[in-house]
């Protein structure tokens, strides 16, 4: 296997509210000798909200982002479940409708770009599983996380809609019984916690317009992990991370029970197992204290 190289779509959160996610992504990529070419031209994916306002515009902007990955002749790697959903969904829709693709390319033509459909789009989690390989990762683990019960929190947009996940990735995931993040935990030497909320919604996307509903979902998720005797939660999605890490106050109030657990980004967990110094993984940027490193 030659050196893995991807076009990195960071998304907006990694550059703003989850700086630790950006830091740990780069630290882990370096350890694994994966080259990431950052798509600095990329715009916001629309986060499923621009899609509510103006669907066509969101397709055009996401197609532009993909066109830049295509220019590099690289697979696009995302580090946010919602970026993954909206980018892969754009690709799915354009690749399945010549008419839509033509209409989008007419707009992209105005700025000298073209969407061809030649780049794959994958989340970093699946890139590690499908391309790097968990067996190889396991061999590189220097600090097995064997003393920890780790609760996987998958995040909706990596696993649903199933049809999109299955056509986008080499490892098809069943949204009712996902295994990728469990497999990653095991490869890092940890013990996985099985709990009902692991493949459920964190409530992020309704936080402003339906705060109570959103906070109950957050609370239920953390409570489920706590009841499963988890030491901490790990997630591949920075938006889930924001909810589970920063909103424990509202979540506790909403479900009438004090809930709080450290929440790590998937990259931070891998980084710990690979022996990255904790300061390179940005643990100090968490609201819920990461008290075990």
């Amino acid at each position, binding site marked *: 296997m030659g050196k893995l190289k991807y076009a990195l779509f960071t998304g907006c959160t990694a550059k703003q509210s*989850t*700086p630790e996610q950006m830091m740990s992504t780069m630290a882990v990529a370096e350890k694994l000798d994966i080259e990431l070419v950052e798509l600095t*031209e990329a715009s*916001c994916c629309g986060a499923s909200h621009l899609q509510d306002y*103006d669907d*066509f515009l969101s397709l055009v902007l996401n197609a532009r982002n993909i066109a830049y990955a295509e220019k590099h002749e690289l697979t696009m790697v995302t580090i946010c479940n919602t970026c993954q959903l909206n980018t892969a969904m754009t690709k799915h829709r354009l690749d399945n409708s010549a008419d839509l693709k033509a209409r989008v390319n007419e707009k992209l033509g105005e*700025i000298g770009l073209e969407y061809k459909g030649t780049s794959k789009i994958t989340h970093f989690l699946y890139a590690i599983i499908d391309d790097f390989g968990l067996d190889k990762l396991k061999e590189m683990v220097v600090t097995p996380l064997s003393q920890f019960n780790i609760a996987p929190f998958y995040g*909706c947009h990596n696993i649903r809609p199933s049809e999109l996940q299955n056509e986008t990735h080499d490892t098809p995931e069943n949204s009712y019984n996902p295994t990728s993040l469990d497999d990653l935990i095991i490869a890092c030497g940890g013990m996985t916690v099985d709990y009902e909320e692991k493949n459920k919604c964190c409530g992020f996307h309704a936080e402003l*317009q339906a705060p109570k509903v959103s906070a109950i979902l957050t609370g239920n998720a953390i409570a489920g992990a706590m009841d499963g005797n988890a030491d901490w939660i790990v997630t591949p999605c920075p938006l889930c991370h924001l909810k589970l890490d920063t909103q424990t106050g509202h979540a506790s109030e909403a479900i009438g029970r004090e809930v709080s657990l450290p929440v790590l980004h998937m990259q931070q967990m891998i980084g710990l197992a690979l022996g990255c110094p904790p300061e390179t993984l940005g643990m100090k940027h968490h609201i819920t204290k990461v008290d075990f490193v």
Partner: protein
Amino acid sequence: MSTTTINTQKVNFNVFRFNADEDYLPYYENYSMDVTSEEVVLDILNRIKWDHDGSFSYRRSCRHGICGTCAIKVNGRVTLACKESMTDMIEVFGNELTIEPLSKKRAIKDLIIDKADFWEKHEQVTPYLDTEIDETPTAENIVTPAQAETLDEADLCIQCGACHYACPVVEISDEFMGPAAFAAAYRFEADIRDGNESRLTDVNKMGSGVWDCVKCFECADACPKEINPIEKIGKLHNMLFQSGKAESNIATRHAVGFERSIKRNGVLDEGSLVLYSELAGIVKHVPVALKMFSKGKIVPPWGIIKSDNLDEIQKLVKSSSTAKF
């Protein structure tokens, strides 16, 4: 002539049992059975009733995936019992299967639930063609194939309730109308013959309407007819903005705020988005925001790293916009 081998496997079923007239709490009964690769989930329900316990209750009717009566949950997954192959279930979940009603809190007798909330919400969206009928028409009321296409298969709904009871918001909010009702609203909004004036704005109202959707896509995976209700929810939003009827509220400003931010920065300015969406309501976010700021999680507007080639993005926003606010 080809032959098909019928494989048999031992499966352990934990089955939800409850009688609202007699039981204080539900309990689970265990049935261990040899299951063949030919069987569907409904065959198992029948065998429990016929071979083990005649009092076991569930709904069934057509056995062809069209009446929508037999929807239940297997290991938390909503499924039409008559359509779901046991082989697939075992492949996904293994040989320990838990059979439950669509909604445990609405159980009346075993797998039978009170679906009143589903029908009440359905009713709220005026789920029928609402139009002035010319009683003495002089020509046919033609719907072209292209116009029929815009329904996007929303008319295939069999009202089984799978998406409704898979929805985490329905589970915790009595007000939320739910994905099936919204898909029905879209089905009639998209129909060229419909003349209802208020449905679109009604379903887009804050609090009970479409904006409480958490975008989890549970409904998309749940629907046995692949109607993709969340896609219809998105289309109801789009129709609202295209019609120019969108009121300014936190949900609409939140959606529009992405376009504003992208125009300005290419990327999202998270802080400004929350401020623009909330307006004065921003005060309730201050305690968490201060904590986040102290941990380096908030970048001020002047610190946002804009996308390279921002002029391209701005040009595309200008040329490709289809909505109004």
